[in-house]
């Protein structure tokens, strides 16, 4: 008997022990014209469930392919660029520093050489004054002679 079967299924249904297939049988039964009078109560329930799948989502989905801005896409590369700039800076900075250091050394050397040359000159000058001292002697002697006369 089909009715027996439906009643049995209903019992299982309310204990949540029916399978999806059995529930389909129930919905099919309650969707037909003739339903046993004492089961009429359940008709709206299964009727409602049967039509529950008709509603659809119709709203548009504004999907953006590039959801990130230009900046956000380039952002990871920013650090790479920064490091590169820093390295270049350090490299050329070092070069320049070395150059300056070399120039300084050269200047120091030139200064020392000049100093040496000047002291040589000074030595010779002082030797010159010694010789002039002899001349003084001569002048004094000459004076003495003049005074005696």
């Amino acid at each position, binding site marked *: 008997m089909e009715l027996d079967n439906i009643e049995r299924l209903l019992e299982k249904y309310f204990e949540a022990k029916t399978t999806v297939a059995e529930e389909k049988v129930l919905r099919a039964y309650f969707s037909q014209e003739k339903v046993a009078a004492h089961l009429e109560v359940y008709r709206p329930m299964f009727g409602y469930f049967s039509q529950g799948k008709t509603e659809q989502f119709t709203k548009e989905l504004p*999907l953006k*392919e590039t959801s990130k801005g230009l900046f956000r896409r380039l952002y990871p590369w920013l650090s790479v660029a920064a490091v590169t700039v820093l390295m270049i800076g350090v490299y050329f900075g070092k070069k320049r520093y070395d150059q300056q250091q070399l120039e300084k050394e050269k200047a120091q050397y030139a200064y020392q050489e000049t100093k040496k040359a000047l002291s040589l000159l000074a030595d010779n000058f002082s030797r010159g004054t010694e010789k002039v001292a002899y001349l003084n002697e001569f002048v004094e002697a000459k004076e003495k002679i003049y005074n005696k006369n």
Partner: protein
Amino acid sequence: MQQSDFLKMVTPFQDKLYRMAKRLLVSREEAEDATQEVLLKLWSKKKTIGSYRNIEAFAMTMTKNFCLDRLKSKQAGNLKLVHSNYQEGGTSLQKQVEAVDSVDWVRKIMEELPEQQKMVLQLRDIEEYDYDEIAEMLEMKPTAVRVALSRARKAVREKLMEKHNYGIG
């Protein structure tokens, strides 16, 4: 993942998400907004989406959580849910009106159920998911799903019996 691939992936279940959202939020506009929000969130995760075993269940869980949060914040804000879209059985034939009405009871009855029972009933009796899927979607144990489902079905039956016996409709 391209837009078209995403839409192809989402199309089979987006209506289900929407119906779930509507079950919880009642208002059509709110349900549409919620579904849109969930799908956009899913889209923003498109790079990692391949690692999810069951995207449909994952999306359903997102929808559930989103709607429940929504309800909670509404309750906290003391706001009433706006739902102006009750279906009207606007036909002159008495019989049709009756039929629509009695089916519509069930919707109203379901509105009064606790959220968990609403969701279980929605996923099982309308969307026909199996227990394991529902358990995954609602982050519950399968046995708990069965218990909630049995309770929900019985609650609907009880309310229907009341109405039937009073002879309304």
